């Protein structure tokens, strides 16, 4: 379902659906696939600030976790030029939720 939304250009909608129920599987492959989808959606969303405004605290925590994951995944792609999108996500999330959201992203292992 997420893939369909993304292909139609609706990255925000895809992301919203994806983070609704955060993956809690122990299988690394499932987690990697989920991370790839979510980070693709995050890289595609044009207005991160607006998306975050509409997210509640739990969703912000999930977004921050995938921001770090996204920076990791896109590190080698295009010499890291895509990372600027994730830096923007990081900045906007901290603006809304403060430093606490970074703490929660670092501390929670289930990404």
């Amino acid at each position: 379902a997420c893939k369909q939304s993304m292909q139609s250009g609706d990255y925000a909608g895809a992301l919203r659906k994806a983070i609704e129920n955060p993956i809690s599987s122990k299988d690394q492959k499932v987690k990697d696939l989920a991370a790839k989808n979510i980070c693709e959606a995050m890289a595609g969303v044009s207005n991160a600030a607006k998306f975050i405004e509409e997210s509640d605290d739990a969703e912000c925590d999930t977004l921050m976790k995938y921001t770090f994951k996204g920076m990791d995944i896109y590190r080698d792609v295009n010499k890291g030029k895509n990372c600027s999108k994730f830096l923007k996500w990081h900045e906007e999330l901290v603006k809304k939720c403060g430093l606490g959201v970074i703490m929660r992203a670092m501390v929670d292992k289930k990404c």
Partner: protein
Amino acid sequence: ASFRSKKMPATETKPFLKTGVTCVAFNANKSLIAICPNSSKVFIYETNGSLNSSKWEKEPKYTLEEHTETVVGMDWCPSTNLLVTCAHDRNAYVWKHVSEKKVVKAGNVSYEKEDKWEPDLVILRINRAATQVKWSPSGAKFAVTSGSKVVPICYYVEAHKWWTCNVIKKHKSTVLDVAWCPNSKFVVTGSTDYKCRIISAFKEELDSSDDDGFGAIFPDQHKFGEVLAEFDNAKAWVQSVAWSSSMYRIAFTGHGSTVHLVQLCADGPPAVTTIRASGLPYVSVEFLSNKAVVAAGYDQNPHLYSASDAHGAEPTWKFEGNVDKEVKKTQKKLGAFGGARAMFEAKSSRSEEKSVSNKKNTTHQNLICGIVPLENGQMITYGLDGILAHWNIEKQGFDSKNLLADS
């Protein structure tokens, strides 16, 4: 020597010690305060009846030296006047104030005046450092948390004249903090295995077998060492725990900058409210009343949380505000020469380009290690900057009448 303004800010912000203060305990009438300056020694100072650290005696009245490693936990029992300390050296000592000594000379017994504290070693049987120690409200037992994943509950055996213990296991990793239920039967512990647990510490000879209303909630309440409830909401180290005086509310903080408030319910499982804080994690949490919880830590500013009611079964908790209003400290105006001097000083000591320092406007300039709750919405916070600051939530602009009310 640094360039300092002649007009000192409020006297309370002056550090009491040059080193950090990691443990603090008052005696029953607050005439003495025991302080550990992040070392293996404990110093007891006279407060001269004041809660303002600038009015305390500068030299300690007693020095308690027995531990060989850093003292990390300290508690002073108001009913028995015994001080218990625990340290990284895997030991705990119970200190007793001795005021007279029996002297036997040539068959005559006389009493000589004495004024010192004598340590009594406690058999803890742990093979890792201790992390915290708390007396039970009855004063008959104390709990020691340790890196050995166990919590010894210690009590005095009159026949052998020593302190021994029964050990609570059940933890999968280091236990960081403990708090007693007001009925002295249960403890709540916080551990690095990400869980907060309520465990029975019931000892038949020392505790009453009354139900206290917990019979319906915890059927195993009188079984020592039994885990009565477990909370994994923190998803991170549980660094501090607290139990309210009403017996049915518990607070614990997680290292993910979260604070969790538990309501024990008679007719169902405990309800947990999770609040995500926007700052850095808390390392200390205390109840000021059933409705007001204060938490402090790396933000250097105590935060107040309040509930909608004092005894209800479904309270709504919310962040009430920062206790420290961060009033900007007045900076002395610098002339041309003074400005150049300040810039050079900033460059050489802090490698900063600007002459105006980025010092935070909070009273505390470093981690707040702990909170001592006092009556009527007052508390003392102490931290690694050596400052012991006294706060009154009414003076800080909060509706203390509502927050301290019993309804």
